[in-house]
């Protein structure tokens, strides 16, 4: 019973000596002591502060995470509404034009906003985001969108949707849905056409040219669970409010601009 305290050096000298003497003739205690001794190297690797830190995680983060997940669901629902609308437009033949225009060149907001539902035109399939827009997948432009028809038929709800900013450049397509969050802006981002292993970061460029890093990530295998080109989605945040942002830039580690997304809001 004293073996633990002995291993930690907490026994007084007399008792420690008695334990040592006992262990000379007791193989069971000796073995037990050696087993416990293996712990001391691990114990020495953490401090009391470390343990306290672990025991008191930052609860503000939990609140923000839950809020972010709720926001994401809302955005998805609204985008699904958009997707359903676009389905109707595509059937009418109008949408095809700007999708063609958008390839290779930069297209943005006003005209392209409804194209959120047309990601499938580029072979994008949102793996992680089961209720994301365009989840019909494939290249079938006229595939009926799975959006709830009530959202689609109610224009006022679509007007309320946070309109995504979209831009394309050299096969890379970035979509940013900004949502005001505190004094800054939360950004739901999806990007496709980026080579696996590329480290990217997104930067908010203010009207005065100042740059504010909003987040970064590496496109890794987890972003392509089925191989090939898919859409990586993530959430970023900038302390700038949308009215102070001129554009967003997606850059590689070396500073090369992958795609620049103007803020037309």
């Amino acid at each position: 019973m004293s073996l633990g305290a002995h291993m930690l050096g907490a026994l007084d000298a007399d008792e420690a000596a008695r334990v040592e003497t006992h262990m000379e003739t007791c193989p069971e205690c000796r073995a037990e002591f050696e087993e416990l001794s293996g712990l001391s190297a691990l114990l020495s690797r953490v401090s009391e502060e470390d343990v306290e830190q672990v025991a008191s995680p930052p609860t503000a983060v939990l609140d923000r995470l839950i809020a972010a997940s709720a926001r994401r669901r809302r955005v998805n629902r609204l985008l699904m509404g958009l997707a359903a609308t676009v389905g109707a437009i595509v059937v009418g033949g109008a949408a095809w034009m700007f999708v063609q225009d958008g390839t290779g060149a930069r297209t943005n907001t006003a005209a392209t906003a409804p194209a959120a539902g047309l990601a499938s035109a580029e072979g994008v399939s949102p793996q992680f985001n089961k209720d994301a827009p365009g989840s019909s997948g494939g290249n079938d432009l006229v595939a009926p969108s799975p959006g709830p028809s009530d959202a689609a038929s109610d224009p006022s709800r679509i007007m309320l949707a946070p309109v995504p900013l979209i831009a394309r450049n050299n096969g890379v397509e970035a979509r940013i849905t900004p949502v005001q969050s505190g004094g800054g802006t939360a950004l739901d981002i999806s990007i496709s056409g980026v080579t696996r292993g590329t480290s990217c970061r997104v930067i908010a460029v203010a009207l005065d040219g100042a740059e504010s890093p909003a987040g970064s990530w590496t496109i890794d295998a987890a972003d392509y669970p089925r191989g090939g080109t898919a859409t990586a989605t993530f959430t970023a945040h900038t302390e700038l409010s949308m009215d102070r942002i001129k554009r967003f830039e997606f850059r590689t580690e070396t500073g090369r601009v992958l795609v620049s997304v103007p803020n037309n809001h």
Partner: protein
Amino acid sequence: MSPAGTADEQLIRSLFDEHAGSLYGYVLRLTGDPGKAEDVVQETLLRAWKHPDVLADRPIRAWLFTVARNLVVDHHRARKSRPQETSDEALAVLPAEDELERAVESWGVADAIAALRPEHRAVLMETYYRGRSVKEAAEVLGIPPGTVKSRTYYALRALKLALEERGLAP
């Protein structure tokens, strides 16, 4: 709230409960900035939540720490407005791969200790981390010295078990 929302929230809560404390401790060490550390923890857990496939088939701890580490490094680089001038400084804060592994282990140990029953944690704190003798610990904790000894023993046994469960057995 929809059933899906509830499931999301549950996943987020369990990710948070299991990993936020150690992840935060780790990132705080790297950045020294509590606000930034919170942001990095938030983004890291958000990614884990959005990539459920990650949770399924690899050691999530190592994945989370890697993502957090990369975020810290990227933030550091991004702070410099001209990327071509950053390489030296960025490298200075980039922890080596084996350091990352070590950090995952160390924070796993901290987790295991934090998850002990409170009375077990308390005796370990006194006898080991605060270097108190059995007698001193008994006074501080208001329990008999014999109880300090037995609790220390059971605390270490419980810790060993917890470390084994985490794949951190000595």
